[in-house]
């Protein structure tokens, strides 16, 4: 297990370094700089700005400086929002994004598992067919359509929930549902398939022959098997929820880091974009690492491979 742990951690860290370096050089290679505006700046001022942000140094030196600062947790100053460092901006947005992502993850897993089990009880039945048809629809309708539809129904017509903004937990209900919907559908599909396979296992047959109740068979004998593929699916799901929140934050006007990402991209705020990339990729890679480790712990065959 120690060897497996070391290998996975090393791979995750190496990927992180590659991503950060690739993004750094890609951004510097992009045409147009952060100080290009409607009006060209006088050359002296531009030179001063370049010097203040170390943009006049050779690329290799800038890169070394960035990595050195990053190792100390310093993401540099924002190029556009003058009084803020990137770390401060991210610290402002992070709680919102984390709350949104975690609630969506909880909804996706709970609702998805429930629907998946319900559909798997009698494969091919009317219940199964209608649940899966509903499922395929929620995968197909994009968030940019479902989110406004939810707002229209629950905020405008029924006025149960606020349409946008933040401030109370109620503000997170609609965004979390909109964000979770396609992932809940994917989880349901996965669980349904795994449960149907589990039902054919001999130990489940034995449990049924012993006269155990259906609920107990599902809980003790089938769900633990069906949960294994779910765990490996959590990696990409977490990544999707995290980045899907870029769109959802925009629609519901939530002040999370997704909004900084879009703003930073539009304004060519290199350090801000880099900072969000660093946060996102480290979050995703550590989540994938956790999933890998949990998987290796659950299934000893994987450790050996």
């Amino acid at each position, binding site marked *: 297990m120690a060897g497996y742990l070391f290998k996975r951690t090393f791979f995750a860290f190496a990927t992180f370094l590659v991503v950060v370096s690739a993004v750094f050089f890609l951004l510097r290679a992009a045409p147009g700089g952060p100080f290009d505006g409607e009006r060209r700046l006088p050359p002296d001022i531009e030179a001063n700005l370049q010097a203040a942000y170390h943009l006049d140094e050779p690329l290799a030196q800038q890169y070394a400086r960035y990595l050195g600062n990053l190792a100390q947790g310093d993401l540099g100053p924002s190029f556009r929002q003058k009084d803020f460092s990137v770390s401060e901006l991210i610290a402002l947005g992070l709680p919102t994004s984390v709350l949104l992502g975690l609630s969506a993850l909880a909804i996706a897993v709970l609702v998805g598992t429930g629907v998946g089990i319900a559909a798997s009880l009698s494969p091919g039945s009317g219940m199964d067919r209608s649940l899966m048809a509903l499922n395929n629809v929620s995968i197909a309708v*994009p968030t940019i*359509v479902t989110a406004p539809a939810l707002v229209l129904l629950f905020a405008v017509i029924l006025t149960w929930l606020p349409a946008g903004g933040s401030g109370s937990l109620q503000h997170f209900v609609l965004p979390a549902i909109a964000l979770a919907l396609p992932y809940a559908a*994917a989880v349901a599909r*996965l669980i349904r398939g795994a449960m149907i*396979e589990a039902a054919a296992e001999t130990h489940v047959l034995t449990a049924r022959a012993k006269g155990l109740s259906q609920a107990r068979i599902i809980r003790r004998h089938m769900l633990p098997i069906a949960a294994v593929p779910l765990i490996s699916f959590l990696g990409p799901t977490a990544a999707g929820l995290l980045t899907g929140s870029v769109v959802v934050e925009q629609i519901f006007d939530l002040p999370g880091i997704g909004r900084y990402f879009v703003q930073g991209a539009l304004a060519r705020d290199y350090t801000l*974009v880099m900072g969000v*990339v660093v946060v996102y990729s480290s979050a995703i890679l550590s989540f994938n690492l956790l999933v890998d480790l949990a998987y290796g712990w659950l299934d000893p065959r994987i450790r050996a491979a």
Partner: protein
Amino acid sequence: MSTATHQNPTLRRSSVRSAWSAWLAGGLLLLVLGSALLGPEIAPWQAEEMDWQAMEAPPSARHWFGTDLVGRDLFVRTMQGARVSLLVALIAISVSLCIGVPWGLLAGYSGGLLDQLMMRFVDAMYSLPLILIVILLVVMFGRNPYLLFAALGAFFWLDIARIVRGQTLRVRHAGFVEAARAMGASTTHILLHHLLPNIRGPVIVYTTLAIPGVILAESFISFLGLGIQEPDTSWGVLVADGVQTMESSPWLLLFPGTMLAVTVWACNTLGDHLRDMMDLQQTDRIN
């Protein structure tokens, strides 16, 4: 396919997708394609033409899908948007095939260290979320949406590369490949004339399944205002416009949104059905 004979029967039964939904999906897809091609030609209005008598008008005989805030016919704009969205998907998918197929062929056929390295690279790329890549590409190619979506295709080839490699591994020691090698055929010849024709089916299936991802990506990017820009239009642009006015004129969201969702559903359903027919292994990955 030889795997069909020892297929686990429960897996076969687990497929709820019946033939009629695949026919429905195929029909809808043809309808979408046909209307994208012909719609702007047969409609009585131009995409940028304003009807001063009907601003923000609901659907009627005069304007089948209604009009937007400045009186432009939504039917023509939706069809025009379909053209752009589908064209963008076509560009991105072509780019992804051009990278993914050779990548998978080479990795699968050569095996060994090269295979390991190439597939490790694919694994690393998988851990990058799409929207992150998209926004970086926007920063780089922001001024040219078509270049942006071509670049996007350079990140959609991962699934294709994996499938092609898997299929190549299966057939690379088949009798006809060994025979071709014994007769002195070059590696390029074997790859192009003996392996490629044998992996065509799975590639078509996974291309069908990749299209919704590209269409959705386009709609998200344009929705955020980072992709296709006015006066050009696409489904994402139209949905973004529709959201602004959904309280007073819901049809502006309804028609483009439905067409987008129907296209994505149809591609998913058709691709799933083809995959079930060919007994290909399922990889659950959305986006």
